[in-house]
């Protein structure tokens, strides 16, 4: 399904515009975070919401219950109702990630994935955030992961780009250089 990203973007944009106009950005973000946490914990949640066998009223009631119990912004419930009616609830994850992109751009933040061979110390992390923050001109939302195969150095993913400064890559480049 190639068009799911296109669909997700439309919904995410609408929701974000709405929350910006009503100054609800943080509330809506918190609400979406929570729904995302629920779906991560319980993989059946989204499925249950999207099966047509269960009456729509029951599914809506469940959403209402969740929103009420965690006292989320009512706009979250309305948004999920729209997704239910339009049968787009299965794209929730894509919509969420698109919303995050908009949210991060709004706050001058950027998602960066950092891959290292070993866990970073606090000072190293601060140094990375400082250097890359000024390089990218944004606040960095850092996600770290460990991959021993890169031997050393760092690999950084951001916005569709890969910066590869790992020892493994350097060795590969060196091999290419020597066998040329």
């Amino acid at each position, binding site marked *: 399904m*190639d068009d799911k990203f296109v669909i997700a973007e439309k919904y995410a944009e609408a929701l974000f515009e709405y929350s910006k106009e009503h100054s609800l950005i943080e509330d809506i973000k918190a609400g979406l975070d929570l729904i995302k946490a629920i779906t991560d914990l319980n993989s059946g949640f989204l499925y249950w919401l999207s099966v047509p066998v269960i009456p729509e009223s029951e599914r809506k009631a469940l959403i209402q219950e969740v929103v009420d119990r965690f006292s989320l912004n009512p706009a979250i419930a309305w948004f999920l109702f729209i997704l239910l009616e339009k049968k787009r609830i299965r794209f929730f994850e894509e919509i969420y990630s698109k919303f995050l992109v908009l949210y991060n751009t709004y706050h001058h933040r950027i998602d960066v994935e950092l891959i290292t061979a070993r866990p970073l110390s606090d000072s190293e992390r601060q140094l990375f955030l400082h250097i890359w923050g000024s390089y990218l001109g944004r606040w960095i939302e850092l996600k770290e992961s460990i991959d021993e195969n890169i031997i050393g150095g760092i690999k950084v993913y951001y916005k569709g780009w890969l910066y590869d*400064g790992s020892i493994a890559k350097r060795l590969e480049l060196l091999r290419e250089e020597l066998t040329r």
Partner: protein
Amino acid sequence: MTIKINPEEISSVIKSRLESFSQTYDLAQVGRVLEVGDGIARIYGLEDAMSGELVYFPKQDIYGMVLNLEEESVGVCLFGDDSDVLEGDEVRCTGRIAEVPVGDGLIGRVVNPLGMPIDGKGEVKSDRFRPIERIAPGVIERQPVKEPLQTGIKAIDAMIPIGRGQRELIIGDRQTGKTAIAIDAIINQKGKGVVCVYVAIGQKNSTIANIVKTLERFGAMDYTIVVAAGASEPAPLLYIAPYAGCAMAEEFLETGRHALIIYDDLTKHAQAYREMSLLLRRPPGREAYPGDIFYAHSRLLERACKYSDAKGGGSLTALPIIETQAGDVTTYIPTNVISITDGQIYLETNLFYQGIRPAINVGLSVSRVGGNAQVKAMKQVAGRLRLDLAQYREMEAFAQFGTELDKATIAQLERGRRLVEILKQGQYKPMSLAEEVMVLYVGVNGYLDDIPMERIKEFEEAWLSALKTDYKQILDEIEAKKEISEDLDAQIRKAVEEFKSGFLK
């Protein structure tokens, strides 16, 4: 033999390499595979990808080409096996448009559409590359076709002459000798300074192997490049094959030399492109071909040209081949390509089985620009030939009713039959210009009229061998002056009469 290695030398080389090794990181745009199947992958990311850009799949070590740029994804065709590509795999932009190695190092080689050798003769020696797609030369850079490209086939060189820089379509049903004409044309370029590129698209690998073997047998591989995309290759490779072959041929055009390229055949190319387009979900049009199938062929064939003298005067002649079904030239692809090219050689099954080989339908075949390039000697004999054959065809229709015919008509029919007979030619037997002219000369001047039909072939062969031995000066003069002067005409008449009296004895 042992190779002596100077350790110092090696380490100094490595050291200098290491010193020049300044790149300490690698920055690339990466995307992820969303879905893959049937040689087509959809990639998420790659926001800066260009249309036609090469992308690299590091895990599988294969390349692809960006074809569709969509709102959230790019459609990529894969130049390799797609069965190892998985959802979520990394894909990198290379920043390069698809290109192939070009140059003299490719001559004599059999390569795939990416320029990689498939003939087991080791690496292709080439350090120059050309993008497979380019905009065809404009009006200013061209000049009209003016030099002939001799195919060595009497019927073609006389009546459907091809000039250097022309695009002449070879069209006909299966098994009518389309490829044979192309191969003969290649064989005839020996020693004429024309580099040939044979692009096999979607053919059986055994057929391709046969063609290469034939070319080798006649020493034609010394000036020929074979670009092979067999039937077992995925559609994207078939699709780029003619463009890649054209890029290789353009290298010779650009360096002021002459090249001949054969696309065998564009029907399969269109089918491969249709397959790709449908998989890329482009809207289908007539016969399910995509809307830009005309452009796919026109931009390819427009690249054939004769450069102006300021640009070096090189030429690129294209002989595309189209296969028809049951002789129907009114289907989509044949009409398209007919309208793009500067004429067509139309081959017919009926003629083929009547023993008229090459099975050229002279009435339907035309060459729109080649006449300007025809040498004078050929014009002198061919002008009458066309006329005589046209009259013969007209009379033939009447003669079939069995009506009583007057003497003049019978004479015309007899002349026509002999001309048809003399235009027959065996495969792999291309003739030189002078030989062609001399054979046609005896035909159009009525010297065959009193030779029995069954002895025409024998007469032709004997006449040719007599020319080569007893009247060599005639052949030499035609080759040198390329025209039949009054003086030479008298010489030829004398020679024919002499020979004929000997032959009929």
